[in-house]
């Protein structure tokens, strides 16, 4: 069962050979034994007891016993196509990438053009660090088979499932497109200056400030009904620009998100309604902060609190989960 556990318990679980995702402080991950696991750094968690900041324990997400084979691989930023080529014939690939690394940025920009990206489920998260240590510490990912850690690579666990099972990735996004302006961008990227507001050229920083936009709420794109967020990192005066936690893409129509009341309660209610016990789930650090999730519970949706989420593509401010379902 996925939860925060002491190092000893995590080590015992690793010794069973069961494939695992592990999250925690780098010093703890470095003390785990070799085994069939991948790990990433974060000190923030949604445990069974509620949201918590913890540097004494690690969060383990054991993969379901239906997994027949698990292969751990490490991919540098120029090897992401090989990651897709290594997808299992039937299964799910679990990925962890350090937030802000070149691998992360390249994945975000180019994932949509990786050939075969959608041919098999890809789910995961961006590793982070304690927020007040951002200036001095780097997020890391761990290959549990070698105990090597990386500040700039993707670790991936390719899990094979028997033919009668399928991995199903879902998201819980509290944000939907509002009914305001349609915003597009003449250039894709993480840093934006110009935008088009209902087709008319404008400065994006000026647009946000003139309307006193609350940048806790993201931009939202509509992908055939799936609401996909792009979160605001900051608005700079010199140079005048808007920084984002994921790239916006040329040609995509965005709107600012509708206001959400009771962000904290949303996740628990929504997850309870879905009646699913996921094999892995994670939620965004921005949701942890803005919904003040420390001390609050979100039902069966336990897991690391992450600095970006991955459900085939990069997501922001979203709860992501995967379950293995027996297909009839």
């Amino acid at each position, binding site marked *: 069962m996925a939860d925060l556990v002491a190092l000893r318990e995590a080590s015992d679980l690793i010794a069973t050979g069961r494939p695992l995702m592990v999250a925690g402080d780098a010093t703890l991950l470095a003390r785990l034994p070799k085994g069939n696991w991948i790990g990433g750094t974060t000190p923030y968690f949604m445990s069974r007891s509620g949201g918590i900041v913890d540097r004494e324990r690690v969060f383990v997400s054991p993969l379901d016993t239906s997994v027949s084979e698990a292969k751990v691989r490490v991919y540098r930023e120029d090897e992401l196509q090989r990651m897709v080529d290594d997808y299992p014939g039937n299964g799910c690939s679990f990925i962890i990438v350090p937030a802000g690394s070149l691998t992360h940025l390249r994945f975000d920009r180019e994932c*949509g*053009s990786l*050939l*075969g*990206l*959608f*041919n*098999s*489920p890809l789910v995961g998260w961006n590793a982070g660090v304690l927020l007040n240590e951002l200036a001095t510490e780097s997020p890391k990912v761990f290959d549990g088979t070698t105990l090597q850690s990386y500040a700039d690579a993707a670790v991936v666990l390719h899990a094979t499932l028997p033919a009668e099972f*399928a991995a*199903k*990735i*879902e*998201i819980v996004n509290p944000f939907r497109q509002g009914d305001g302006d349609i915003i597009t961008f003449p250039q894709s990227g993480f840093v934006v200056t110009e935008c088009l507001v209902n087709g008319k050229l404008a400065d994006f920083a000026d647009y946000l400030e003139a309307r006193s936009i609350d940048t806790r709420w993201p931009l939202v*794109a*509509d*992908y*055939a*009904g*799936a609401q*996909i967020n792009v979160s605001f990192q900051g608005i700079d005066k010199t140079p005048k620009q808007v920084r984002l936690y994921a790239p916006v*893409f040329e*040609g*995509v129509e965005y709107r600012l998100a509708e206001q959400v009341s009771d962000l904290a309660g949303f996740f628990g209610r929504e997850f309870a309604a879905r009646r699913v016990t996921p094999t892995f789930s994670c939620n965004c650090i921005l949701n942890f902060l803005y919904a003040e999730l420390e001390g609050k519970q979100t039902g069966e949706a336990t897991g690391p609190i992450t600095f970006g989420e991955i*459900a*085939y*593509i990069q997501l922001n401010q979203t709860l992501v989960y995967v379950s293995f379902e027996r*297909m009839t």
Partner: protein
Amino acid sequence: MKPPPINDPRWGNFVQSEREYPLKCLASRIMYGQVKLIAKRDPDQAIRLAYEYFQKNEALAADDLRLVFPEQNG
């Protein structure tokens, strides 16, 4: 249900359509959002991406495939 052959002209209609398909599966939705972007610059790549998606995700995306190609039997 198997997807139609990749050279079926309906694939071109699908990737370049203005129609909003009520796709159920998250993967189908995200795939379709990406495919429509790619189709603006490279329709052939978009078709290949969509075809392979439905071919490799038969169980997961069966309902969505029937939605897109309702007249397909198999």
